[in-house]
């Protein structure tokens, strides 16, 4: 069942990408994780633009794991853009970032983030978090319809 779903990870740091992917493996989550490394790429992916125009290869994600500090277009801008897209505005977005600043937290919620998670320093905690996210957003959560006005 989980193979039907895709998670979009927006993260510029390849080491973090590696660790997140490893944590997914450790958490025994088989959900497909698509990775884009900057804000613009995230927009292209979600918009189905090249090089992500093939929805079979790059399906719409069930939720987005969004880093905030990104090259070119920041995580906040990506989120703001998503919330402005009629087809995408219901897409769950989970901010995953190293900042615990209230400014960041509040701004992200203001922009319509569904969750805000600070990257844990401990790898095991990251595994726990990903397990929880999987349970919440994929196993139990009722998914919204996307692309329907």
């Amino acid at each position, binding site marked *: 069942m989980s193979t039907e779903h895709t998670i979009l990870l927006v993260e510029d*740091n390849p080491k973090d990408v590696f*660790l997140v992917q*490893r944590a997914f493996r450790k958490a025994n989550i088989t959900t497909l994780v698509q990775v884009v490394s900057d804000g613009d790429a995230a927009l292209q992916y979600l918009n189905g633009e090249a090089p992500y125009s093939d929805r079979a290869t790059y399906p719409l994600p069930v939720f987005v794991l969004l880093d905030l500090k990104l090259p070119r277009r920041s995580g906040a801008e990506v989120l703001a853009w998503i919330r402005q897209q009629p087809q995408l505005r219901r897409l769950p977005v989970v901010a995953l970032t*190293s900042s*615990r600043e209230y*400014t960041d937290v509040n701004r992200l919620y203001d922009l319509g983030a569904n969750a805000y998670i600070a990257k844990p*320093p401990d790898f095991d905690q990251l595994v726990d978090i990903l397990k929880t996210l999987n349970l919440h957003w994929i196993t139990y959560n009722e998914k919204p319809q996307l692309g329907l006005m």
Partner: protein
Amino acid sequence: MILIVPQTQFRRRLTRAIALPIVLLLLLSGISIWQTTRLLSALDWVDHTSRVISQANSAQNLLLDMETGFRGYLLTGEQEFLEPYEQANRLIEPRLEELKTLVSDNPSQVERVVELTASFQRWEQQVLPAIARRQRGELEPLSDLRGRKQIMDQMRQQIAAFISTEERLRNQRSQTAQATTQSVILTSLLLAAGIGAMLAYFIYRQILWVSRVYKDALQTAQLRTQEAEQSAISLQRSARRLAALHDIDRAILAAELDRPLIGKALTKMRQVVKFQQAFVAIFDLETETAQVLASNSQVGELALPVGTRLTVADFALEQTMLNGVRYVQNLSTAEACPPVLVQLRAQGFLSCLSVPLRVDHTLVGELNLASTEPAAFDEEAQEIAFEVANQLAIALEQTRLRTQLQNYAALLEQRVSDRTAQLEETNQELEAFTYSVSHDLRAPLRTIHGFANALIEDCGEQLDDLGRNYIASIMEDAAQMNGLISDLLNYSRLTRTQISLQPTKLAEVVEDALKQLTAQIQEKQAQIEVAAALPGVMAHRSTLIQAVTNLIGNAIKFVEPTTQPQIDIFAEETYHNGRRWIRMWIVDNGIGIAPEHQERVFRVFERLHGAESYPGTGIGLAIVRKGLERMGGQVGVESQLGRGSRFWIALPMAVPPSHNLTHDPTPPNSSY
């Protein structure tokens, strides 16, 4: 009081006015009594003498009666004729005796009476035998008759002498009495006249004095009345003047700008001083220029319109201007006028009053009053002009100071905004730094930790124990550093974040804190006793949870390794500065803190123990203190080394939510 006569003097005069007539009258009475007595005594003597004479006459008559009776008896021999003799015989001796007594004061007369008595006795001695003889019928010898006649004649002579002596005496005494009467009358008249004159003089003196006193008083009163009238008049004038000056004052206070202010002052001044034109020129001594700032005219065009630019020298030499009011009574006859006065003269003005405007001996301008009449400004006008000039000088100075102050204020404001901008910049830098720390500094730590973890999990089997220990150390330190950064960020966030105080239940806060500490509590098997009913306080919930978590965490952490942590949490109500406070105690059985270190533990990075015995960042209590400070509360500790610690936090008691407080001691630009 108008009659200013010393009271003692007045009383003395009054006493004299009463006493002197009394004394004089007493004297007059005394003299009159004495005179009268003298007169009476003189009259008495006259009377006495008359009585003596009448007695003497009576005695003479008795003697005659006796002789007549005796002769008749001798002739007739009848007893009936003898009767007058016998009657007189009974009276004669006492009468003579009486006469003697009456004239006892006069020895010669007494002598006469004695002689008369002796004569009578001799006569009687001859009468008695004669009577006896007649009774016997014998005849009287002629010799006897002659003898008796002789004695009788002698007696008659004696009495006559006596009487004539007395009569002389009487005349003499009558004269004396008369003289006394005259002298009494005369002296009485003289005395009366003298005393009358004295009294008259005295009364005249008194009346003169009183009238003079009253005249003086009257004059004084008149003078006073005149003075009062004059002062009433001058009071009226000065009241009018004061009112005008007061108006000028008000104008000075009300007007902000120099020009309207001076204009108003000049208009007001016209109410008390008669002038046709007035203007105020302001001097700039540095450039030697002057400018007419405001003027006031009653007649046509202004001699010097507002804005006219002149030089200071046009008015007069600076030094002469400083000396005071310059008054030219008649411009047409004045010599060596400064250009301004020449201009006024050309306009037909005849008198001019120039008053310098001075501030602390510095000339700032001049007030000029001009009139088309000569000698138009009396002394009072000069005084008023002087006062107005002083007021204007002060007003001008005030304007200058106000401008200066405004400039200063603007400068200060500029500085403040500069500083604020600097602060904002610094703050932004600080925020950027914090952000960077929170993001970028932790990212490599996370990767270090993550990859070390991956290394030990994925390749752990290929490593020996030493290698695995190395990796464990790397992970430990990464975790430690992460904790440090995390605590620092918490601390800095506390100083920068705006927090709002809400009624917060301590019971829930403690519950939350204990939940966060579950792992430590289980690890150390800590026994935690929480009092049943913890009250509500005014606090920022998450900050308070963090503080309480740190305090309970410390209580669990800082115990001897062999000791089971025992923690009591309870609260009490206190009063401080008229407010109700809640003080919550967290009492442990830990290692305690020596008194000298009790203040240090609340500072950032202050650690009392090595990380190996009691791990930590040394920021926990600093976070507690900062958090409590931000919420307007306090934190403290009572402890003894080895006897546990009693930490307390104090916060204001909860008030209903409608009274929410926003507690924000940080500058507004640092909050977000």
